[in-house]
């Protein structure tokens, strides 16, 4: 991430971001990208948010009227109004993150680089920010590059996923392909009318029993397995669970052999 934004000079290899070499053209590149670090602010700690943003306008040379218009728009979208005059150090993490996003977008960059933007945020702030990102991606066509350990971000936001494991590329592709890469079976959760010994049917393996509830890993078409289960047992309820992306990624990290053609 730091090489992509020009902070670090690569020791070998080369990088190009929106057509520029980040370490050589760092200042020029800075005008075409917006950067947000989840762990630290790019705002001025002791200044009110409004001053920080107006300083940003000067540094990025955005005309005053354009700035005012964009600020009004972002203020509305991200609900900044209540804390625009609060010094940045007094903002909550969620408020600060919204302030940082605003600062990164006031010069309308075609590329927004987000380094763990949802780290440490509460559920409401997270979803506000995800909705906002989806919106600017859709309406402005802003490309968003995001690094995250929160796989909820990935499931909600990403069209293309790159998994990096110990500095090596482990996967690059879309979300459905990522799911298909690692054979994580779907799970059928069966609630029986009464506790019973583990169900034994063809095409599924019972992996867990907890009272009347049993978990079956599917190896066959779910419809067929379901009909076999209902044929032999009295079933109160059935749920089919898709493997979540977390399981897929951790399987990838554990080194479950991914499908050759995808890597």
């Amino acid at each position, binding site marked *: 991430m730091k090489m992509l934004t020009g*902070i670090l000079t690569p020791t070998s290899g080369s990088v190009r971001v929106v057509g520029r070499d980040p370490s050589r053209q760092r200042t020029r590149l800075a005008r075409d990208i917006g950067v947000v670090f989840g762990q630290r602010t790019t705002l001025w700690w002791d200044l009110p948010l409004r001053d920080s943003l107006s300083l940003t306008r*000067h540094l990025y*040379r955005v*005309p005053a009227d354009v700035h005012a218009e964009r600020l009004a728009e972002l203020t509305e979208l991200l609900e900044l109004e209540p804390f625009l005059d609060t010094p940045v150090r007094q903002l909550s993490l969620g408020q600060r993150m919204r302030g940082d996003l605003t600062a990164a977008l006031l010069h309308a960059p075609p590329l927004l680089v987000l380094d763990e933007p949802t780290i440490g945020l509460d559920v409401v702030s997270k979803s506000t920010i995800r909705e906002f990102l989806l919106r600017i991606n859709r309406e402005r066509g802003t490309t968003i590059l995001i690094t995250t350990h929160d796989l909820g971000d990935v499931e909600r936001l990403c069209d293309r996923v790159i998994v990096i494991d110990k500095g090596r590329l482990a996967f690059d592709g879309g979300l459905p392909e990522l799911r298909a890469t690692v054979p994580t079976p779907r799970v059928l959760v069966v609630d029986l009318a009464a506790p019973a010994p583990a169900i034994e049917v063809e095409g599924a393996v019972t992996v867990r029993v907890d009272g009347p509830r049993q978990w079956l890993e599917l190896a066959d078409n779910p419809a067929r397995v379901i009909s076999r289960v209902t044929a032999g047992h009295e079933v109160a309820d059935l749920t089919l669970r898709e493997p979540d992306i977390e399981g897929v990624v951790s399987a990838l990290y554990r080194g479950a052999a991914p499908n050759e053609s995808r890597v």
Partner: protein
Amino acid sequence: MVETPTRVRATGNPLVHAAGAVLRPVQDYHRLAWIWVRAFAQYPASLLLMSLAVTVSVLAQVGAVVIVFGHAGTLAGFTVYEGLMVFGLAASAFGVADMFMGAVERLGSHIRAGSFDAMLVRPVSPLVQLAADEFSPRRLGKVVPALVVLGIALANIDVEWTPGRVLLLPVMMLSGVLICGAIWVATACLQFFVANAREAANSLTYGGQALSEYPLAIYGREIVRSVTYVVPLAFISWQPALLVLDRPDPLGMPEALRHAGPVIAVLACTGAALLWRFGLRHYRSTGS
């Protein structure tokens, strides 16, 4: 959504382009400094007290100079007023450099806090951002009394003020400021490689100021040589003083040195700029 392009296209005129390259950092510095002045101005009492505290410390130093020369009568052939001129030249050059560039010594803490990374992703020279950070008018508390002392000293020394001398003085003072600024930046660059190099840097910045506030002839020959040829502190107050007083060098160093100030200043700034670039290229950041 608003989609007006914010890019300012460089015009074909190379002169306009060059002017922009020089003016932009100045404008950016001004913007950044101004917002800090405004922030500090919200607490006027605190600002005033801090300025006064700085002024008092300068006056204490002036007192020390007067006492030392008062007891000795002359020191290395310098009278009280001539000594005060040396002091005034050094203190004003360091004061002005400190006001505009002194904040670069906080590079290490910016690196640790990650705020230096934030400076690097803005389209403004990180050196400008670093130098303008927390720009405080309280540093005028150092510059103003130093200039007053210099003024008093110049009015009382026995020198014929030819137009040449009058013109030379501001040139020498500007060179002094540039040399001090270059020392500040160069020593700050150490912090790219050594995390807590600030104290080491201060031995040269503030230590250098203390050293050059007295006629260098009172120090040993080796010290004077090293502050002439290694760290060019001698060109901040000592050589300009010899030039103004038109006095032979008590240590017998070449007389041409006293005219070298501007050249040394340009060399020092170039060196500092190269060091800064080198440091930036090898910047490792923190965390991942």
